[in-house]
């Protein structure tokens, strides 16, 4: 590696970190606003215009807070854990393109690299749980391990379906293959599996088993405070952003679909804006889901993952393979995928463990004041209770 390469990579890394930090700050603000609106509140309103500087204030508060070390904590493990969570979350971004030429290093095995790196964050969470010397942290760390390992399988399988269609693991090539339509059209089931498994990988709300506040009071992060907690937080939101970005890249056509006009840098700027707009929509959907659904129980999480998502993701790959092998037109894949998706949704509802009976209660209006007994009531002898 030459010196110029080293300098350019360093600058690119710093720039990427800055960009991600800004995006994370914006996401925390957006999440609080979105959740507030869902609950008919306003969210942060005081710091800056409509609370726009609230994340900055929060960050300053976190950095200036005292960093507490539990007396029984395993020191090296405890201090390394935030880094072990943050580094994979950042390394992921090395190969994620924001536009055709706007990528730190476009790897040929980009998707493979991403799947390999995301698994590493489990290690950090388990380390945080172990190092804290806290029973809640330990439980949370082990829950994180179980959950992340379980959902890694459908997550990768959903990615694999797209990779089979494109015959490439290069993210730029994948986006270029979607110039006419996003793969969400061809593989709706793949999109569903990817987004669901992605949410579980992130530990976001329907699947936030590992830092469930009402059960394990914050999971692996219980004992962390100040800057180290902020690092966990940053990593978590960077991962959320990464999953939204990957959804856009793999299924929604990235910066293409439709193609942006103009040439040169104007084209790049438009592409990035379009790409970020799509990502914002996906992030908004993630927030929307968080504002809607309650947390799953851990057994529900496991049965949903292993009994439903994993088999379906395998079937998805088999179906894709069959369609590609016999050279059938791609719309057959759309139909098959939709059939599988509806079958899966049927299984979710028909599952006797999760079925809910609906009870309709009709409320009859009651008039205030005394009701004069009518002739019929006096004859039959029934009395009104007024």
């Amino acid at each position, binding site marked *: 590696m030459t010196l110029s390469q080293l300098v350019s990579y360093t600058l690119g890394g710093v720039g990427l970190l800055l960009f991600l930090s800004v995006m994370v700050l914006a996401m925390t603000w957006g999440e609080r606003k979105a959740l507030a609106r869902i609950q008919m509140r306003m969210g942060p*309103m005081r710091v800056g215009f409509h609370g726009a500087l609230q994340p900055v204030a929060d960050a300053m508060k976190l950095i200036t807070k005292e960093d507490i070390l539990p007396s029984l904590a395993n020191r090296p493990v405890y201090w390394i854990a935030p880094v072990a969570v943050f580094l994979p979350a950042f390394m992921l971004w090395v190969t994620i393109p924001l536009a055709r030429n706007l990528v730190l290093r476009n790897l040929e095995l980009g998707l493979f690299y991403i799947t390999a790196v995301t698994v590493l964050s489990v290690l950090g969470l388990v380390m945080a749980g172990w190092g804290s010397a806290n029973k809640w942290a330990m439980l949370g760390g082990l829950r994180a391990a179980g959950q992340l390992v379980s959902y890694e399988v459908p997550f990768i399988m959903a990615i694999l379906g797209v990779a089979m269609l494109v015959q490439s693991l290069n993210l730029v090539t994948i986006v270029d293959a979607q110039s006419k339509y996003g793969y969400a059209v061809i593989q709706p089931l793949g999109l569903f599996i990817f987004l669901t498994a992605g949410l579980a990988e992130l530990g976001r709300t329907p699947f936030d088993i590992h830092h469930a506040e009402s059960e394990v009071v914050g999971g692996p992060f219980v004992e962390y405070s100040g800057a180290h907690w902020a690092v966990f937080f940053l990593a978590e939101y960077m991962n959320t952003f990464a999953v939204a970005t990957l959804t856009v890249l793999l299924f929604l056509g990235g910066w293409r679909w439709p193609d942006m006009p103009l040439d040169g840098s104007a084209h790049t700027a438009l592409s990035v804006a379009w790409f970020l707009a799509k990502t914002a929509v996906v992030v908004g959907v993630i927030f929307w889901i968080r504002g809607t659904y309650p947390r799953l129980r851990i057994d529900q999480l496991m049965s949903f993952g292993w009994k439903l998502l994993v088999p379906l993701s395998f079937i998805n790959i088999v179906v894709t393979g069959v369609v590609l092998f016999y050279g059938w037109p791609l719309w057959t894949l759309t139909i098959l995928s939709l059939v599988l998706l509806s079958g899966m949704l049927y299984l979710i509802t028909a599952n006797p463990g999760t079925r809910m009976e609906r009870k309709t209660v009709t409320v009859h209006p009651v008039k205030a004041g005394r009701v004069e007994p009518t002739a019929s009531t006096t004859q039959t002898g029934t009395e009104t209770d007024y």
Partner: protein
Amino acid sequence: MIGFLEGLLVTLKTAMRKPITAQYPDPDKRLDLANRYMGFPALLWDRDVEEPYCTGCMVCIRACPTLCMSAQMKDNPLHAVKKSRRRKVIDTFEVNLGRCILCGICVDVCNFDAIEMSHNHELTKYQRNGNRVNLGQLIDMGKAYQSETSWVPKQPDKNSGVPLKTDSAPRSGQEMSDRASDVGAPARHSSIAEISETTPKEPNGIETQS
């Protein structure tokens, strides 16, 4: 499955609604107080004769469960010049609003429509004892309350300060001595003013409880 989608729809609908938050400290974004709102007690002002309704009878002070009030009465100078019906009027009145529990008993026991739970509810002060309010502040609170709510006395005939027609005519000595005996003073005095002059005053006020 329909339930899952319905859930998303519900949150989408609520997200479209206007937030119900009132951003409290901004004066124009607060919620309006209901007329019946019970804030801290305030003394009311009789606009007919330009003096407080309060006569300093101490009933509210004795009834107060937290002992947060103290007061002192004086002879009413307006009564001496026949402009008011009240013979006694409040001289000093102090309420420690930090101790007040907003129970409203002082309002219930008042015979003169003189005290009312105002709409004032904000107590934040920088001093530890910054919530002790004196007569002037209590009357200001009461005036604000009266202008906000178009308050009228519950017993206007009894408690109005406007002099009765008979007050303007010279009273008979017998009537005055009867009244004087009601307040427990010797019957030989012919006017209230004489009583208060002859009755020994306590140097530190009648009662200091807070």
